[in-house]
């Protein structure tokens, strides 16, 4: 295989940008939880980076991108342990080293698992989450990545278009979040008690880092530097902006206020919606997709109150719902191949992704809850995870309350 220097430089840089999204997510989510749980949220995100990267290298990468085991359902273990780093990735015609590709895809697996910390906010065990994230990456993420991303996957072969992970990352995490919310149950006091964000400035900084990293996520998914990467980059920026505008327009109309949290959430909703589409649509279509993503997000986050599931930080509403909208809009707005046939294939991908992710995540979460435990005891939840689970507090305003032991 021929390795192109420019492509390699861009994909490696993009991989680092995507990694940076997860600490960004830690800030985005950390600001939204109550001050007694902010460190627990952040360390779960750091933990996701560590555990998923390890699992990815050992086995999950091969299950996702290894040679197909038959039927386009799962890869074999030929690439387990990142073996054969100089051989072309099955089905691809990459101009970057396979290890650069493996590293880039590793960061996708990391952030997809990390998104689930938003659903489990305020009540998920740290150790239980790490076990869950490891199993989930193997059982839920790797197969869906194989179906949709790998040229040997069955949905890819049917012609499903997912440029940067509308199915693999967004719908996958949204449907998994719903299952996780059911297994974990509601937070103590939800929805009656006030659970307002403790620091929206952290959330805004986090949204900014996600936005920045998303250029690597989307434009990097071209897996080369050139026209397609440039289109994906521009689509990403435009959709983030119209996502913001769509969200705050609707909330201004519904509640009378354009909020900071709404603006930050709208950015993410627009970015989610453009993810499957960014390299397949033109710039004006990207404006529309982002706007519809923002409008979908602000309407979808109300659903948890109507149906009574405690998806604490709205992973279902923002990633699930906006991911579905973006994936379906590819069938309508793609520059090549748009039409009833493509729309049907996109809808099929949405349905099977939701079905697989919801069912298998429910099973994995249930198993972890029954074995090592996935939810903290009530008294820990009431006192706060930071002091009880991690023996730290995020904000120390003086030394009156403590003396040095020993």
């Amino acid at each position, binding site marked *: 295989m021929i390795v192109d220097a420019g492509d390699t430089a861009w994909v490696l840089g993009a991989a680092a940008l995507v990694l940076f999204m997860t600490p960004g997510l830690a800030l985005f989510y950390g600001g939204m939880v109550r001050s007694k749980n902010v460190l627990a949220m952040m360390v779960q995100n750091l933990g996701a980076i560590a555990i998923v990267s390890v699992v990815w290298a050992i086995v999950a990468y091969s299950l996702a991108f290894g040679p197909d085991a038959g039927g386009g359902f799962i890869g074999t273990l030929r690439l387990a342990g990142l073996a054969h780093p100089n051989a072309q990735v099955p089905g691809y015609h990459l101009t970057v080293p396979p290890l650069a590709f493996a590293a880039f895809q590793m960061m996708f697996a990391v952030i997809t698992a990390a998104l689930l910390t938003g659903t489990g906010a305020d009540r998920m065990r740290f150790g239980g989450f790490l076990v869950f994230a490891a199993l989930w990456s193997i059982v839920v993420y790797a197969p869906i990545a194989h179906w949709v991303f790998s040229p040997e996957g069955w949905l890819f072969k049917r012609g499903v278009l997912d440029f940067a992970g509308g199915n693999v990352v967004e719908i996958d995490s949204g449907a998994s979040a719903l299952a996780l919310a059911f297994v974990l149950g509601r937070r103590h006091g939800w*929805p009656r008690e*006030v659970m*307002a*964000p403790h620091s929206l400035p952290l959330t805004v900084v986090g949204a900014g880092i996600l936005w920045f990293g998303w250029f690597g996520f989307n434009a990097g998914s071209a897996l080369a530097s050139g026209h397609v990467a440039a289109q994906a980059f521009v689509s990403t920026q435009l959709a983030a902006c119209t996502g913001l505008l769509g969200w705050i327009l609707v*909330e201004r109309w*519904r*509640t009378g*206020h354009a*909020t900071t*949290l*709404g603006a930050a*959430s709208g950015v993410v909703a627009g970015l989610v919606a453009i993810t499957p589409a960014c390299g397949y649509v033109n710039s004006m279509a990207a404006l529309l997709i982002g706007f519809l993503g923002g409008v979908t997000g*602000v309407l979808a*986050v*109300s659903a948890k*109150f109507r149906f009574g599931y405690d998806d604490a930080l*709205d992973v279902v509403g923002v990633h699930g719902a906006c991911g579905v909208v973006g994936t379906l809009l590819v069938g309508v707005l793609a520059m090549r191949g748009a039409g009833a046939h493509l729309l049907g294939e996109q809808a099929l991908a949405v349905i099977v992704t939701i079905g697989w992710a919801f069912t298998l995540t429910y099973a994995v979460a249930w198993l972890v809850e029954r074995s090592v435990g996935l939810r903290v005891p009530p008294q820990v939840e009431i006192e706060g995870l930071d002091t009880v689970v991690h023996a730290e507090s995020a904000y120390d305003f003086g030394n009156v309350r403590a003396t040095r032991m020993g």
Partner: protein
Amino acid sequence: MRLVTAIVKPFKLDDVKQALHELGVEGMTVSEVQGHGRQRGHTEVYRGAEYVVDFVPKVRIEVLVDDETAVQVVDAVTTAARTGQIGDGKIWTVPIDDVVRIRTGERGPDAL
């Protein structure tokens, strides 16, 4: 000796402090508190979830003075903290049995 306690709007703290200094009152204790009388709180909205915030930020000022000064302090704070709007706060005084200046051990009026 009396303890004068005043709950006032936070932005009026400087005016009250100035008025007390003009009276010759040398010390005070200030704390940031939350509460409400007739003033209503406000509503906050986070992703569509509305919360009513009942308690309004206030500043609590406490001054220990002799009985005569207490009357002047109450008048001075009343003038300095008034805006005429709901939520201006309250002042009350209570008698104090004893006061000790920790540094010297002085007691009673000498310690003020």
